[in-house]
């Protein structure tokens, strides 16, 4: 009910602390290049907004406690745990999920490398692994295997496909395609 005026007030004076909610407020989210207008409680996590409101179920709720990495997405190109990120905090920022990684029918090289290297078994953690893996390269955190190990350590894989995930990351880093 108060959301519209308060949202616009925030746009005009972003440094002013504004109370939004409780109750549903209007939140604009840009996800995979498309703008979405949501009416959500300010405490709704980005993960729940993606899964339950936008039907983008590729991002997984493995623990909802920031401990498994299955919910990893990018906000303004940086990887974040969407379970620990409020949706409302992502206004005017660009969210990218696994559904927005491929270029139309052409898989992102990391997706192709995951297939070529069999970098998963059950596949549940895989969207988070891939979002982390792509970001890892951009961050410059894939210099060697120990680097990859450390900077991928936030993404648990109970099937423990880690050796093949590393192979996939190395392939993309080194510009190898397919196998």
């Amino acid at each position: 009910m108060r959301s519209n005026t308060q949202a616009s007030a925030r746009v005009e004076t972003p440094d002013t602390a504004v109370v939004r909610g409780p109750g549903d407020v209007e939140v604009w989210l840009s996800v995979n290049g498309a703008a979405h207008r949501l009416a959500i409680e300010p405490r709704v996590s980005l993960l729940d907004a993606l899964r339950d409101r936008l039907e983008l179920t590729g991002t997984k709720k493995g623990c909802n406690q920031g401990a498994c990495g299955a919910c990893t997405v990018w906000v303004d190109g940086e990887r974040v745990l969407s379970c620990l990120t409020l949706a409302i905090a992502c206004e005017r920022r660009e969210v990218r999920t696994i559904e927005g990684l491929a270029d139309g029918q052409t898989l992102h090289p990391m997706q192709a490398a995951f297939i070529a290297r069999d970098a998963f078994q059950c596949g549940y953690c895989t969207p988070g692994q891939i979002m982390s893996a792509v970001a890892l390269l951009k961050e410059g955190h894939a210099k060697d295997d120990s680097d990859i190990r450390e900077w991928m350590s936030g993404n648990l894989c109970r099937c423990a496909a880690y050796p093949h995930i590393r192979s996939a990351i190395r392939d993309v880093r080194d510009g190898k395609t397919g196998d």
Partner: protein
Amino acid sequence: MTITSQAPAAEVGAARKRKEDARLITGQTMWTENIVVPGMLHMAILRSPLGHARISRIDTAPALREPNVVAAFSGRDVADVQGSLPCAWPVTAELVMPAHPPLAVDEVCHTGEAVAVVVARDRASAVDALAAIEIDYEPLPVVLDLEAALADGADLVHTDQTTNKAYTWIFDSAQAGTGGAVDEAASGAEVVIRRRYRQQRLIPAFMEPRSVVVDATGDQVTVWSATQIPHVLRFLLAVGTGTPEHRVRVVAPDVGGGFGGKLQVTPEEMITYLASKRAGRPVKYTETRSDSLLSAHHGRDMIQDIELSARRDGTVLGLNVRLTANMGAYLGLVGPGVPILGAFMYNAIYKFPAYRFECTGVFTNTTFTDAYRGAGRPEATYAIERIMDELAVEVGLDPLEVRRRNWIGHEEFPFTTVAGLTYDSGNYEAATDRAKQLLGYDELRREQAARRASGDPVQLGIGVSTYTEMCGLAPSRVLGSLRYGAGGWESASIRVLPTGKIEVVTGSSPHGQGHETAWSQIVADQLGVAFEDVEVLHGDTRTAYKGMDTYGSRSLAVGGFALVNACKKVIDKAKPVAAHLLECDVSDVEFADGAFRVRGTPDGGRSLADCALAVFAAHDLPDGVEPTLDADDVYDPVNFSFPHGTHLCAVEVDTETGRVTIRAYVAVDDVGRVVNPMIVEGQVHGGVAQGVAQALFEEAVYDADGNLLTGTFVDYTPPSAADLPDIVSDRTETPAPDHPLGTKGVGEAGTIASTPAVVNAVVDALRPYGVDDVPMPCTPERVWQAIRNGGGQS
């Protein structure tokens, strides 16, 4: 289509990229939690905060006044209809089986036990309204310690029982006629080694939390569940609820890992069914991670008292195993049978002349235990491979040499063991030689000696594990003799579509194993069709109505056998059709390389697709030829399969901090003929990781009041990429002699082999400090304590 004599490339053995993958890497997979049914409501579960208590009062009515709430009920509201959750493996006739109501009625027996539910229009409302439920508990004594639970006058886990002992199950080779008496062996032995090992409690911790959607609104009950066992669930849901079986449909959509943890008919599935019935709407329940760690069944948790008798030359004379196994508060679906699966494996790859095994199952006020990757066999392998190292130290032999002196030689197969199993094949020498070579065993031993001599604070340890396992569960007659409630067969159906494309229906139910790919490879070879022209259907009882599901490394060993048989039947049905098309006698038709030909005539053959089209039209089939090529097979294995191998692990142990670092890990496995080496390698990696995790990282811990202290991934710590070594994985290949594909099974091998390899390495590193055991998991603190205590058990 006319076929020339060009043989298609063999699919079996090729590292085919998986068919399952495209949907997994684009986020398009159908997990149960993604399923939305029109009118669907959401359920939240109130769980006991106490380890043991009487429910003196419970009132769910206040929850009904909360926003968006549609229904709320407790165990008392459904006491007459909810029944008891099934245990399908009553291992003895005298087994004590407490009632296991999906929702507790008067008494809660472990923390996390479900006591009441709220059903609401959205999940948040359901969770919020749980707080409005009023409930009073009267705390009861909590029983946690296995040995205290068995003592006279012990407090009771269930107040309506008279004992905490579930069962005692005994195998004695002297009685079975498979060997001698262990007491005689011990009395005549030059060396008797006694050890107590603890299998800590573990949690399967699949990445996909359990989720279930039930639509019980009409005559037809439909259940979507993240389960390994849709067929077993259908049967038991029908029997348990009185719903006619033909009106129950169970679907296991894409399932995100199981490792035995989803081999269960869960309280949550039954409660969701009850909620859908009461609300008259479809209902979804998805657990949180903490609820999952708290209430989904746990694994392992046993005390192993082992006595090994031997001669000074290292020859083992007898093995006596006394096992105390924690059942938790209830008996899971196959929980009592898990230690019994291990009973046949303690003698491992060895020719022991005498063997006795006694297992006592004990109730405690903890989450019930059941299958976890390997189920009984990792525990057995751990105990024997640990104590064989102790024997090696005692008699002054290299651990591989003491094994060699006892193991079954490759020329001795088939070999009937002291536990009564007949191992069909194996070559322990070849796997061990290969593993030694890959690790550089002898060089590492030299380095170890040098480090010991120099007093290096970082010591080197080399751990050995030579294992076999019984998998391909299981011959139905054997299961029957062990009092298991079902058979061990598996089914396959082949549908040959008019265009020659193939649908395969399998009764096994994958959750990450890659069946769609491997089954396609097998069918492509058997029927001479393209890999891409095969679609594998599974996990929906409407399509795949007959199956025994996926666990115990059984899918390929048993289901693959059925698949090959079904393919052969298709070829047999196609032959008269091909003969008709080729205008020859059926006895002159041969099928090879994907084509039916007149014997001795290399060209001018007909494909299966030609035959499929001919039976589709059916215009001029010969008299008596059924117009279909479809075929089914149900295969009941005549024996288990016996993968084996040698795993070697080298660790560095910092004696000042207790930190263990795996420096090298070599896994040489013999899983028979391999259908897809890429998938097999992934299974080995994953299996080894879970075994390493038991050795070094994971333990489910309860405090003295029965609270689970490890209810998040911060406290219960499956290894990350940073925690695990590179694994050098190689194979020897001894085809299973009685299997048409020669396959044995690989899903559990790594887990079974790796735990003792790692712990043996840790202990080996610390021998100069007088250490002969480090309890699992070998955390830095425990390693440090072991060094400071200057020893272990002896």
